């Protein structure tokens, strides 16, 4: 842990990038909450400065040779030293820039989207809290620090999902998100503690050093801790089986969904995997589990997206599925493929959500059929940007998603996982299908549709503020178009300073991009047949099979199952049993003790009542029994 030639300027800049949002949070919450414009200005200024700092760091360290570590002691207790520090390496620098950039853009966008909301100040306060926690998470130097900020990010998510807390569904969704991710975090914390007990430290450079870990941990222990930590990733990145909180999290304001629940926070799970890639790759079992979970989540979520009517729900399912896709890439052994897809996805998924926000803002509904009917296609910039984003999501050249998706597919093929490769191909097909289903529904509205809008408008805000929103959309769309061409520089950058990225680019299959494009074309064609062409009834093939439509629409009944388990096992089972035990057994016994003491007192009281008859009677009885006893004995 020798800090490689400490460059104080980097430290100062990073610290500023991290602490400014915290400062903004404090100031907004304590002082300026009721002054909306000022709060927004403070928050955006902090986010903007953080972005500048992150970009400066990225440029400054583009030729980085060794990771920079700055550590200080946060707390000491006996054998436990909890450090707080900053770890700057290509991975964290890149993620820092991505998070700062998207935070900044989303906060600008929110100026228009959230205008007129009574909780405007509180909104920006929570956004700053999130920015602080997320930025600090990305540059954390130890696993424990990651856990701490991981929890704080979860807190920000809870507060923002339940931002419109008047609505029962919103507060319920916030609670669900917190509790479900907490369930994963229990495993994470347990894994972290076990790891700490074995290694004596949780510093990331040590954890990712195979020699250091292998010397102290048995292979079984590595697998156990890796799987426990992976539990946290499953919770945070909404993977199977903890995936049902994310669609519900769409109850939050749309910019929140864009920032937290697609681009950055849910990607923290994948980021943690990349961060600990060196550690995870020591356990083939953990890698296989990661690949399997990623595959299952990707397929499940894609099927759910095929029948959703709510535009945000579609993108939410798609987020789960894309996160699963990243985990597949990582699980197949390619750090770069997973990370690259994380970065491209952050851009185009934020774009898709923010476009969805524009539609919702104008049409006052989340239902995509309704959006189509209300003339969603007249919103030119949102529509074009949605098509760009959906194209990237579907992996169409030359958009960013094309490059990162193709990279993962070729890795799956090379690393000898034919099943996963096939699953990924199916997933890619479904992804393209549901993306273009959405686009065609908005583009070609049908009048005669008996289905009423399923959901109402998600806010109390007024229309307007288009300029700031449109500017952000075009900015992200531009990124989506060009980012793919930076694959090689990014790869070279990430391969520096030993983050675990292979220096050599993977073998190139010339047929793969062609095949992927053809697959996408077929999917678009299918969507066109069912939703686009003139006589299309806009009912997908899945919806014609009631069984499948029901299964997918009900999220594979996972939610029902959890609800049932929670109700029967937790509330009606253990909790009620314990409560009854408390009332009847414990309290009952002690109250009984009290009553019997009183009863005993009565008996003694009666004996001592001082009535001469009783005394005489007892005396006589005693004398007789004495005589009898002596008589017998004698």
């Amino acid at each position, binding site marked *: 842990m020798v800090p490689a030639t400490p460059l104080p300027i980097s430290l100062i800049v990073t610290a500023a990038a991290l602490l400014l949002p915290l400062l903004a949070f404090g100031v907004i919450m304590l002082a300026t909450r009721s002054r909306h414009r000022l709060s927004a200005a403070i928050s955006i200024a902090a986010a903007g400065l953080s972005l500048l700092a992150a970009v400066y760091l990225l440029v400054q360290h583009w030729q980085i040779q060794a990771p920079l570590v700055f550590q200080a002691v946060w707390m000491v207790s*006996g054998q*436990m030293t909890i450090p707080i520090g900053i770890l700057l390496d290509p991975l964290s620098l890149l993620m820092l820039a991505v998070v700062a950039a998207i935070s900044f853009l989303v906060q600008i966008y929110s100026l228009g989207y959230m205008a007129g909301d009574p909780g405007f100040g509180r909104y920006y306060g929570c956004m700053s809290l999130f920015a602080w926690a997320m930025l600090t998470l990305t540059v954390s130097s130890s696993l424990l620090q990651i856990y701490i900020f991981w929890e704080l990010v979860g*807190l920000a998510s809870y507060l923002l999902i339940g931002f419109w807390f*008047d609505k029962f569904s919103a507060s319920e969704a916030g609670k669900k998100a917190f509790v479900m991710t907490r369930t994963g975090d*229990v495993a994470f914390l347990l894994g972290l503690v076990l790891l700490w007990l074995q290694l004596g430290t949780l510093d990331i450079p040590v954890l990712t050093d195979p020699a250091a870990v292998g010397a102290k941990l048995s292979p079984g222990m590595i697998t156990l801790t890796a799987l426990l930590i992976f539990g946290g990733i499953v919770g945070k990145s909404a993977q199977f089986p903890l995936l049902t909180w994310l669609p519900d999290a769409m109850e939050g304001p749309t910019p929140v969904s864009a920032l937290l629940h697609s681009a950055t926070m849910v990607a923290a799970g994948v980021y943690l995997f990349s961060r600990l890639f060196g550690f995870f790759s020591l356990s083939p079992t953990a890698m296989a589990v990661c690949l399997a979970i990623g595959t299952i989540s990707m397929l499940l979520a894609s099927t759910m997206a095929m029948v959703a009517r709510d535009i945000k729900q579609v993108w939410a399912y798609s987020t789960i599925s894309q996160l699963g896709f990243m985990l597949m890439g990582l699980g197949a052994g390619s750090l770069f493929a997973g990370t690259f897809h994380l970065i491209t996805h952050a851009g185009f998924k934020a774009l898709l959500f923010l476009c969805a926000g524009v539609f919702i803002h104008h049409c006052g509904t989340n239902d995509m059929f309704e959006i189509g009917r209300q003339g969603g296609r007249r919103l030119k910039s949102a529509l074009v940007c949605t098509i760009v984003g959906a194209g990237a999501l579907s992996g169409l050249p030359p958009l960013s998603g094309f490059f990162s998706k193709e990279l993962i597919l070729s890795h799956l093929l090379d690393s000898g996982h034919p099943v996963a490769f096939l699953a990924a191909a199916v997933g890619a097909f479904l992804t393209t299908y549901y993306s273009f289903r959405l686009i065609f529904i908005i583009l070609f509205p049908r009048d005669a549709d008996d289905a009423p809008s399923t959901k109402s408008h998600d806010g109390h805000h007024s229309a307007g503020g288009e300029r700031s929103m449109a500017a952000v959309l075009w900015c992200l769309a531009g990124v989506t178009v060009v980012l793919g061409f930076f694959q090689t520089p990014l790869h070279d950058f990430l391969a520096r300073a030993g983050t675990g990225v292979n220096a050599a680019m993977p073998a190139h299959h010339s047929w793969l991009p062609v095949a992927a494009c053809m697959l996408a074309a077929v999917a678009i064609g299918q969507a066109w047949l069912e939703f686009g062409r003139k006589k299309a009834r806009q009912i997908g093939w899945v919806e014609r099979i009631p069984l499948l439509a029901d299964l997918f629409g009900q999220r594979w009944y996972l939610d029902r199952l959890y609800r049932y388990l929670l109700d029967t096992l*937790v509330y009606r089972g253990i909790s009620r049993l314990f409560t009854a035990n*408390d009332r009847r057994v414990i309290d009952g016994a002690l109250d009984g003790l009290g009553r019997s003491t009183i009863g005993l007192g009565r008996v003694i009281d009666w004996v001592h009542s001082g009535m001469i008859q009783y005394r005489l009677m007892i005396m006589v009885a005693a004398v007789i029994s004495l005589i009898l006893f002596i008589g017998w004995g004698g």
Partner: protein
Amino acid sequence: MAYQLANFPFLTALLLCCVAGLLAILAIPARHARAIKIVGAVFSGLTLVISIYLFIAYDQQSGGFQFVERVAWIPALGIAYYNGVDGFALPMLLLTGIVFFTAVLTCWEMELRVKEFFALIFLLVTGVFGLFMSLDLFFIFVWFDVSLFPMYLLIAIWGSTRKEYGAMKLTLYLLAGSALILPAIVYLVVHSGAMTFDLLALMEGDRFTPAQQRIAFFLLYIGFGILAGVFPFHTWSPVGHVAAPTAVSMIHAGVLMKIGAFGILRVGMFLCPEGWQYWAPLMAVLATCGIVYGTFVGLNQTDLKYVIGYSSVAHMGIVGLGLSTMTVDGINGAVFQMFAHGIMTALFFSSVGYIYDRTHTKAIAELGGLSRIMPRATSFFIIAALTGIGVPCLASFWGELVVFMSCVRVYPVAGALAIGALAVSALFMLRVVQKTCYGPPLEKFADLKDITAALAVPRVILVSVIVLFGLFPGLLFDMIHTATMHLIGLR
């Protein structure tokens, strides 16, 4: 000057502050309620100032007991007025000072029999301060009882919801506890071979055989444990909290429950290390039961104060778990958690108290949508709930983390269960927050006022303390550590 200051009897001054406050309140005619409150605030504020001074002035480099004062009282029996503080006592004194001051400020709007109420609170707190600083077993027992008996009157007169039952139950339980502590103390003194109640003298040399230590420790553990809400002797605590008025709940859960844990630590662990070792597995089992059990029972409660009462049972279970590990970290974490829980639960009760004062109900089902009506008052409640869940950068997190980390090493199963209970505790707290604060504002509460600046002061103090020690846990850990090293070094 510095020399004189060093010899100034600060600990006695602290006690005298309470006594002076008590006398002053008694001297003021009952009709001057406002004057009584001001006098109460001034004297409780003074105790806070002194306890902060002591905390800062304590020399952590040399450690051990400082600010020692000793006056022989009954030499024939070896009883002395003997005070001294170490790294365990100082956080507790600070906690008592903070909770006392904020509790007095919390009942600023109280009207019923103010004089008697304040007098009893002052008497109670005198006992608490005395216990935390005393190094004489006889005085520890006396202070213990001094702090218990005002409780009965405070609950029975100013309480609500089955107050007579709650007061009686609490008193009987705690008296049962003191009925175990007294024999244990006498047993130890008799077998020490020296007629003295001096805690430090009794610690020197191997005075007690392991068998004697086991007997004495068990009695002390159960006796003090009742007050600390150890499972299965915890049922007085939720009932008592529900019945007690706000300020009393704050002091009760915030400070009195700590007396129990502190007693186990100061008397049990200092004098009977072998007994501690022998019973540690039992402590771990009971503590884990308390954590899991308290959390699950809390899920099912319908009364706000019951919910907090059961969360206290769970949180005190974490303290017990830390003590049972017999490791430096476990003890550090346990004492930290005692402090953090004290502040947190005081905040909890004071914010619930405000809600109850305005809405006149504690039934969760009747509440809802309060965040729209009283945003400031409910944010205090939400912060307390988040602290209870163990959100990082709020004080409780550190205590829990350190206890869990040391516990998994010693008792892996217990540690895993306790960590697992974290998920349920999140469900438990957030459910209550959702049902009371969130949702559409209710018609019947629409005219209620949000908390005023004056009433917000005590809550703001508590929140600041939670955040301060959440961001800088080292302030407290370094202090506790001096005493832990001393204790572990003795073994």
